[in-house]
């Protein structure tokens, strides 16, 4: 199982906690999928006096590791303030860092991301940066202290899957020792399995489960797919080829 900042987690599936029909269904989704990490947003829920305590207590009751995030933050300052608040609320140095650069696509702001990651890492945070699959950006994030990378599959909430297989594969090849998590854009379990087959360590998703007709069943499907994909990656898959290769020998035909 993947190890993030020295902590081995219990599952390769990480689930967001927003947009479920109810907290009870959210809990079912975690139970049936075996997801090991819950991400939780604190920006809006904190209210004037941390009035989101009731919901956060429900998240803690899930019994999984909590990864607070800075969802909805558009500036470095906002993201850092939110991270500091999250550290206090959840008593963890983990922070999933989102610095959004574009309101329509929710695309990460790579420049703000590096700046915020550097400051937070310097302040003792263990940063999980939500980034694009850009190799140079990822190198910079590692340079400023990130020991996990979370490239997107596709824009948040789109369900488009893995938009740039080449880019994701290239990241895996360049960072063999850094845990890589596909974060955002997944719509189907097969896409999560594909990420695992590329050698990724985990996937993080929210909308695909929360907005399914039966979120708990979809979460379970993702849990199975992630395991299948990881198992396949370990089993050293065959390489694709152009010519048919009969599994039973065929005699009497010309072999080219």
């Amino acid at each position: 199982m993947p190890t993030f900042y020295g902590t081995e987690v219990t599952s390769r599936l990480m689930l967001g906690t927003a947009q479920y029909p109810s907290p009870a269904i959210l809990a079912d989704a975690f139970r049936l999928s075996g997801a090991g990490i819950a991400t939780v947003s604190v920006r809006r829920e904190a209210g004037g006096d941390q009035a989101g305590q009731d919901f956060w207590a429900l998240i803690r009751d899930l019994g999984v590791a909590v990864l607070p995030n800075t969802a909805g933050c558009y500036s470095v300052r906002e993201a850092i303030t939110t991270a500091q608040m999250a550290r206090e609320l959840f008593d963890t140095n983990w922070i999933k860092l989102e610095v959004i650069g574009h309101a329509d696509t929710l695309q990460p702001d790579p420049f703000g991301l590096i700046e915020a990651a550097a400051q937070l890492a310097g302040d003792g945070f263990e940063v999980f940066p939500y980034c694009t699959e850009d190799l140079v950006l990822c190198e910079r994030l590692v340079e400023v202290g990130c020991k996990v990378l979370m490239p997107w599959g596709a824009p948040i909430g789109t369900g488009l899957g893995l938009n740039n297989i080449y880019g994701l594969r290239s990241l895996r090849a360049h960072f063999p020792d850094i845990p890589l998590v596909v974060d955002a854009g997944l719509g189907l379990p097969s896409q999560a399995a594909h990420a695992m087959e590329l050698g990724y360590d985990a996937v993080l998703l929210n909308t695909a489960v929360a907005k399914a007709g039966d979120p708990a069943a979809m979460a379970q499907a993702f849990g199975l797919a992630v395991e299948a994909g990881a198992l396949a990656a370990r089993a050293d898959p065959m390489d694709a080829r152009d010519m048919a290769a009969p599994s039973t020998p065929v005699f009497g035909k010309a072999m080219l």
Partner: protein
Amino acid sequence: MSGPFTIIGGGVCGLAMAAELSSRSAQVTVIDLKSAPGDHACSWWAGGMLAPDCEGVSAEPEIVSQGRKAARWWESQGGTVHHEGTLVVALSRDQSDLATFARRAPTATSLSKTQIADQEPHLAERYSKALFLADEGHLDPRATLTALHARLKQRGVRFGTDIAGRVIDCRGLAARDTLTDLRGVKGEMLVVRCPDITLSRPVRLLHPRFPLYIVPRGDGVFMLGATQIETGERTRATLRSAMELMYAAYALHPAFGEAELLEIGVDARPAFPDNQPRIRRIGDVIYANGLFRHGFLLAPALAQMTADLVLNGKIPEVWYEDHRER
């Protein structure tokens, strides 16, 4: 047995409870913070949509089946229900959300541009496709609560401060002191006046980030709702929330850009972890709570089942918990 009963809380839950019990000849006292319905109850800020089919897209089947009783009940208590159905639309780039909604709302029918023009001429200018849920209705929450309060007084329901007889606790989020699994879900809403557009029925705009409903209140006034944030904060409507509601309304129809802003409202809905209500017995007290975003939709069923329980000993078919057995 016909009481006496004391209902604590005069929001939609408490008043519906008082109405149901008093219409079955029980003697009822209501204790509320104030002498008349007002903004101290979160139902004051409600949309007042009686839309079980739309809610069923993401809510449990019990909410749909129990919610279907609401319109008739409110009318039986003298309320005015508009039976105009619900119209559901999505912006052109979110058409997949409309397809998903149609699949999950079996009673929805698809409308063409011409059919939209028959229902809501102003929307036909912008939408060539919509969903229609014919059996849904809506009411004006404030007018309904105020009229029901007056009617209950006429009927002999007392509004006082002294507890007499059996207590039915309908305090909403305030009952968190006893109901530890109750939480608040913050909601913000706007009221605007927009004479440039006419709508006859609630319209829902599906949007991945800023879903919106608009409920016409007559005289060019519209209620725009509502955010849903996991916090128990009952005050402090934020700029971001107001902006999201305004943005969505403007996207629904640009005529809302010239609307006059009349009100920004905020409160927190009481909810249990499964977002379904409960009739919970603790000691001698009955707690009716957790109506979440379904106050006007589910208060009637909750009141009827509670009345059946306290008057006839009939165990409610859903949502009942007897904590004495634990």
